[in-house]
């Protein structure tokens, strides 16, 4: 018996609950050799800014226990290049494209959101949680007032479904989610990376050129799962969970904790076919459990 994998993120219908996380899957095209991009629930493209950004000085990556730190610094070619070069290809391939956007100021976020109301874009993901840029990014995501302001303003320029991606680097993640919901978010995605650091004892210097960076990978999964569970109970809008998902089993844990969909992040670097394997694994689990729809799993944690 075929199982129904489709989920709704507000008005956004996804053929299955598995997306790839921003910054870990390029523009999808880098991975087209590994599977059919249109078979994914969605591709969240690299964080996009109004102007091109060069990113942070190297070293940008360091491996850590069961994970990695990155300080890429939102390197991207800017929104105009994205619209002219990448979006047409994604549209032709039938990819459910979600654009992650980041700005230095509320006005920039608004201008970007307005520019991105285009055919072929399924939803926007508001990045107020990048830990690796000085202005904007996480600065917007760690104060209630700033979250409210940026979400409320962007909402006015955005007819597309608006997903707000939260930073885990806060005291009360559920409160931040409620603020974003009240300001008009259609969905909440979490978690972005946890701020971390690595030190080289030979040179006695920080390993990363930016001193600090965002921790991702299986090391952060328990933290992500806990935060998704807390947020799912605190808001009515759908939640998209991510953080260290490597397998279908990991993804199912997030669904049980209340996520309506998941994003695959650092796993794409290690095993480029992960997202497709997670979709297949969820379908197999549902069949094995005698379930007909993935929606039966969402929030199904027994307490």
């Amino acid at each position, binding site marked *: 018996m075929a199982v129904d994998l489709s989920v709704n993120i507000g008005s956004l219908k996804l053929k299955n609950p598995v997306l790839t996380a921003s910054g870990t899957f390029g523009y999808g095209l880098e991975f087209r050799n590994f599977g059919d991009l249109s078979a994914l629930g969605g591709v969240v493209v690299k964080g996009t800014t109004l102007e091109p950004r060069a990113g942070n000085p*190297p070293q*940008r990556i360091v*491996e850590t226990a069961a994970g990695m730190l990155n300080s890429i610094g939102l390197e991207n070619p800017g929104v105009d290049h994205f619209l002219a070069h990448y979006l047409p290809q994604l549209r032709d391939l039938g990819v459910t494209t979600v654009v992650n956007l980041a700005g230095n100021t509320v006005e920039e976020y608004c201008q970007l959101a307005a520019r991105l109301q285009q055919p072929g874009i399924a939803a926007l993901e508001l990045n107020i949680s990048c830990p690796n840029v000085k202005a904007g990014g996480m600065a917007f995501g760690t104060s209630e007032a700033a979250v409210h302001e940026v979400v409320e303003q962007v909402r006015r320029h955005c007819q597309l479904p608006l997903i707000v991606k939260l930073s885990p680097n806060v005291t009360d993640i559920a409160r931040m989610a409620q603020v974003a919901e009240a300001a008009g978010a259609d969905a909440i995605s979490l978690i972005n990376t946890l701020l971390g650091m690595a030190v080289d004892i030979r040179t006695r210097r920080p390993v990363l050129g930016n001193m600090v960076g965002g921790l991702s990978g299986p090391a952060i999964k328990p933290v992500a799962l806990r935060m998704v569970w807390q947020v799912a109970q605190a808001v009515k809008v759908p939640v998209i969970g991510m953080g260290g998902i490597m397998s279908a089993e990991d993804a199912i844990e997030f669904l049980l904790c209340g996520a309506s969909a998941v994003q695959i992040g650092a796993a794409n670097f290690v095993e480029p076919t992960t997202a497709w394997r997670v979709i297949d694994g969820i379908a197999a689990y549902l069949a094995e459990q005698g379930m007909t729809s993935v929606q039966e799993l969402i929030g199904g944690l027994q307490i």
Partner: protein
Amino acid sequence: MLATESAAVVSNEQLNEHTWLMRVQVPAIAQRVKPGQFVQVRVTGTYDPFLRTPLSVHDCDPTQGTIDLLYQTVGTSTRLLSEYTKSTPLNILGPLGRGFTLPAPASNNFALLVAGGIGIAPMLLLARKLVANQISTRLLYGARSVSELVRIDAFERLGVTVACSTDDGSYGITGNVVDLLAGFLQSGVAGEIFACGPNPMLRALQALVREKKLSAQLSLEAYMACGLGACLGCAVPVPGGGYKHVCTDGPVFDEREVQL
């Protein structure tokens, strides 16, 4: 089509204290790899170490379906790799990146390979193709000490002339490989320069070839996660600002493209 491939270890031999030579069976990669390209090796099925290890392809035998990887045990992944035997499964992604641009076959061009330390790794496959293309090829190879010079016999078997330098003078000239190159260039013979080694060496080589108004292709190393152009971790500064990425723009660059 780029893919991950399950690999069987054919042999894994220790050459000196820190250097190992591994032969793996990966027919699809062996058919397609070009000199200067690299592969991403997944050392374990567990999450620690987490990332794949980028290694340049040292040699390949398309008939046997094997590639050779020459690596140093510098971290957890490579240390684990050195313990691998025939029964240990590996997963390899590749071939990745832009390799060396070779001179036209049988042209009068002359190839000068310059390797520092483990920078010898991509040079054997390059030398094999150059020799097959009837390009006269010479290797200049430097290391800290004679014990760190490896695989010289493999180059000599191809008919490549090898000259060495060591920091401690234990073999060849005393000094570094850029000194050796400078000395060689005194002879007035200019050829295509192909270089790989640590960044300080490549920086010195870049200064030398600019002074002599020669061109050079540099194979760079960088910390990277994906190897596919997605993570943007392996940034290398370019003149005038901004970055290129070692995994997809390189690992081989024209020396004029990068600011080391």
